[in-house]
């Protein structure tokens, strides 16, 4: 049986993967991959994954089966995903609570769905349907969203509604909670307080950009801000030891710079979780 991811992990970015694998820094405890970057693909990326798997446990995080999507995945993809997850011994898989495709066209981005009962019913049904076909537990990730409507239910009620209806797991993105709380004016700590601890299997933490007009954009291109660090500590105190991913997907710094941030997160993690 594969080792379970725990502690602080990072994404297996091609920008630094070779160096990461060569140096094997002890502060990195696991890594995350998007199956869409490896399924039906060989060459350098396949080699990178093989080499990293020999060193660390991993978690998988999907980008294209978002729970708000309507279209049936094309024939064969779910089988390929299931085979991939089995091959890499993924302990669970995660997807986003949003939509990323419509009418068989992919947007390659994470778009918000209305936070309504209809959306809960749809997302929960899709979560169960996907989970039944991939062979491992499925977690949903709360997403950042830049639109808000007064007719929508609160975000945490929406997330919990889907989790309850699907009996699902949660990948809690702390930065997304902070971004939405700031952009839409709710209490981030109250959100964390309402998270069903027993369902949380992983956390994400990332940097964001504050625009001149105050709107926060979830870029994954900056260092983690101190306010998000604080929220991370708060969430960790409530949830306890689980795998935590530092997301960095753009403006990738040198590995040493990223490792400083990993060590900072690790220090908080060790203080809270012992």
């Amino acid at each position: 049986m594969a080792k379970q991811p725990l502690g602080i992990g990072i994404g297996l970015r091609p920008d630094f993967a070779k160096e990461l694998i060569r140096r094997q820094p002890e502060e990195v405890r696991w890594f995350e991959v998007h199956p869409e970057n490896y399924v039906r693909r060989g060459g350098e990326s396949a080699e990178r994954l093989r080499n990293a798997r020999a060193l660390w446990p991993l978690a998988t995080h999907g980008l294209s089966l978002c729970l708000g999507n309507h279209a049936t995945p094309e024939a064969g993809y779910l089988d390929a995903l299931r085979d991939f997850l089995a091959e890499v011994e993924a302990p669970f898989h995660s997807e986003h609570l949003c939509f990323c495709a419509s009418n068989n066209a992919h947007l390659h981005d994470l778009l918000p769905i209305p936070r309504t009962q209809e959306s809960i019913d749809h997302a929960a049904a899709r979560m169960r349907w996907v989970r039944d076909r991939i062979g491992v537990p499925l977690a949903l990730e709360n997403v950042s969203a830049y639109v808000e409507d007064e007719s929508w239910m609160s975000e945490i009620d929406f997330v919990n509604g889907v989790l309850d209806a699907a009996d699902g797991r949660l990948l809690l993105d702390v930065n997304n909670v902070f971004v939405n709380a700031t952009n839409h004016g709710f209490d981030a700590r109250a959100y964390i307080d309402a998270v069903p601890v027993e369902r949380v299997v992983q956390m994400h933490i990332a940097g964001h950009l504050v625009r001149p007009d105050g709107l926060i954009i979830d870029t994954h291109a900056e260092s983690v801000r101190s306010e998000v660090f604080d929220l991370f500590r708060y969430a960790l105190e409530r949830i306890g030891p689980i795998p935590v991913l530092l997301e960095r997907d753009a403006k990738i710094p040198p590995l040493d710079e990223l490792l400083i941030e990993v060590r900072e997160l690790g220090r908080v993690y060790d203080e809270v979780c012992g």
Partner: protein
Amino acid sequence: MSSSPESSALAAYESAVLRVCYDRRASDADLASLDGSGERWLLYRRMVRRRLTRMIRDALPQSFKLMGDEGTEAVVAFLASYGTRSRFIRDCVLEFAEHRLEAPTTPELAWMLRLESAKWACRHAMDDVGDAPELSLEAVLSFSISSQFISVQRAGAPPRAAVVSRNASHRVTVRKLTALETALVRAWVAGGAAASAASRSVARELGVEVDAAFVEVMATLLTDLVDAGAVRALDP
């Protein structure tokens, strides 16, 4: 999984967002039909378009150089066709190239789009599975899964062909082909005949002597393709 009647409103909502993001202009009607601020939906439009445009342009730099200002319109037209059918974002490069090639092109642009998209496809292609038999002139050859034969024939320009492939070190290379080499490669991978027999057929069809020069061309080409990981032997 089929949509339930209850989720049809959600499907319509998502269709409107798709149009906002991909149509040449986001319509006022679509923006008005969505919850939340239209300005924020236009932010999503910009983010979606910027990501895909960057990826396509970065993967096809010489093609965009040839297109010049027209490159922007080509991406706009592609997005407006809702042509991003693959869940793998890397495929949007190939989807764009195919879409652009459906429109009139100069021979030079057609060649460059084929060449750069083949390089992209080979870089990301799957690996061959299992060991192939030893390569020799007596083997029947096939292209490896991470290689592509490309050929462009356009009026007013000489035909061009090449084999693009990825080798064991993951390096993608281009082997441009002469007319004779093109005929040889086509014959080798047509199946059914060993490379030597297929080569003799080519010589007969082209009225070329199987002399030392011909053998030299044949041997050099085969060596180059083997070194580049482009061909492998089929099981007898």
